[in-house]
């Protein structure tokens, strides 16, 4: 009786997490289509989709881009987020809050709006960025066309920094000032105090935040879809976009599901690491 109130939430989670995951694995072994004959009469084809998936250069290209996108986004968000959090402590309160509000706004703005803002900012000769380049006398750039992957990474860092900043701000407050003063008396410079004292102390927070930002970046679809749509060609196509294109543009639901399973596999690994770190943190905090 005591666990009855748990039932509705548990049922929802099972029905919409566990069942779809199993369904995805099953569907990935069929030739299910979005419409037409293959939509009504899907046939079981074993691992054929996976065979095509892993022999298609487009998959490997997308995997590589996903690694670059996730790696650089996570590094950028964590480094910039930490730096802002660190510098923020020393700044004048008014400037402190102004900068925080602006950085947080970039994070709270809906995904479609963020994508749309950057699209207008980067696109065309009269875009905001080229206006700024005019002031400094730089040549005009069309990064959405010439460096699409770099562009979406910058956009994603811009959008995600606030989260890391908030996390690291909280962590920095927990570093006792006595430890820092002791380091200063021992003659430690700024860099020594950051790398020798602060970072080791907040290492558990860094670990968990890196995993969390990785998980959040793995599924990013909207901002890429809106700014470059994975293009030009496939030059900024990451796994989620490849999945969408195969499943909906080409109508290959079965094949798209095999990409979903691959993406899910990475998610499961990262999520298991996350739970592991979560347990460690729980044990430490008692």
């Amino acid at each position, binding site marked *: 009786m005591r666990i009855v109130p748990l039932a509705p939430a548990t049922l929802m989670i099972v029905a919409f997490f566990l069942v779809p995951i199993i369904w995805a694995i099953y569907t990935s072994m069929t030739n299910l289509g979005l419409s037409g004959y293959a939509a009504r009469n899907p046939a079981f084809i074993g691992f054929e989709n996976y065979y095509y998936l892993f022999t298609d250069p487009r998959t490997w290209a997308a995997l590589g881009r996903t690694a670059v996108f996730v790696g650089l986004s996570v590094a950028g968000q964590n480094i910039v987020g930490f730096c802002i959090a660190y510098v923020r402590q020393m700044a004048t309160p008014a400037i402190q809050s102004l900068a925080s509000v602006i950085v947080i706004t970039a994070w709270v703005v809906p995904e479609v709006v963020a994508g749309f803002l950057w699209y207008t900012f980067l696109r065309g000769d009269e875009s905001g960025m080229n206006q700024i380049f005019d002031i400094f006398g730089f040549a005009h750039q069309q990064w959405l066309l010439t460096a699409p992957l770099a562009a979406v990474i910058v956009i994603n860092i811009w959008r995600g920094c606030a989260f890391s900043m908030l996390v690291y701000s909280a962590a920095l407050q927990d570093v006792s000032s006595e430890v820092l003063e002791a380091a200063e008396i021992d003659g430690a410079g700024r860099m020594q105090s950051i790398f020798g004292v602060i970072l080791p102390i907040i290492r558990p927070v860094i670990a968990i935040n890196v995993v969390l930002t990785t998980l959040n970046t793995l599924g990013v679809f909207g901002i890429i879809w809106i700014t470059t749509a994975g293009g030009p060609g496939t030059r900024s196509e990451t796994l989620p976009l490849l999945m969408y294109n195969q499943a909906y543009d080409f109508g290959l639901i079965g094949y798209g599901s095999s990409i979903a399973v691959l993406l899910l596999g990475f998610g499961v690994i990262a999520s298991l690491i996350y739970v592991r770190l979560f347990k460690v*943190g729980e044990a430490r905090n008692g």
Partner: protein
Amino acid sequence: MANLAKAKTRDRLAADIALTFVAIAFVVPMVWMVLAAFDAEATLAIQLPAHWSLTNFGAILTEDVAIRPFMNSVIISAGTSCLVVILALFAGYPLSRYRLRYGKQYIYTIVFASALPITAIMVPIYVMFVHIGLVDTLAGVIVFRTAAELPFAVWLMKGFMDAIPTDLEEAAWTEGASRMEGVAYIVVPLLAPGIATIFILSFIENWGNFFVPFILLQSRDNYPMAVSLYSFFGEYGEAMYGQLAAFALLYTAPTLLVYFLIQKPLQKGGLRLGGAVKA
């Protein structure tokens, strides 16, 4: 000492300059939207409107363009957040108050689920919803969004409940109150700030979500703001920048309003780590 004071002033100045630079870099891509929204002749360039006007807002505030999508967004976000809070309240209570045999494992499982990328299960969800007739319905979006938010919400709710001492409830039981009455008259009122936090977090998340309605909805009448902004952009993007900016601003405003209202309690509660707020 004089040297130390000087060093502190120098640090502060350097920090101020660095933060100002950060602020400018982060705000520049947003400036255009605010200016263009009030400029009937807006282009892609960042420029002060020659004539400030509400023309763009007037043009989009019609039933078809912005009002229906706005209402759809409200229905999806409010509906989901209500369901999430109620279900999390039910689930959080036994997890917080009883020593359940698999309680710990349950928590680890939902923490695990809360971190999975939802993007990856949208294809099977779509196929499932076609089978059970939930595709292209607001109810379908609400049901799935609820499931997607639940693991994190249940975990948060348990945490908030753990912070409420059990003595008050026990005192009520000795006075003859039932468990349900204890929950309704003692736990829920004390839990109000936590419930509000979960509701608002879920609301913001759903208001901003694009992928789920983008996959599950097909008819224009069902589009929330996220999807209709996207399709408006695709159809008229090259011509009506001002209206587009106004639409985007209208869509963004509620999130900003709500977020900055609750920012203080959020920073105190949700973001202390291991708190796992979704980015």
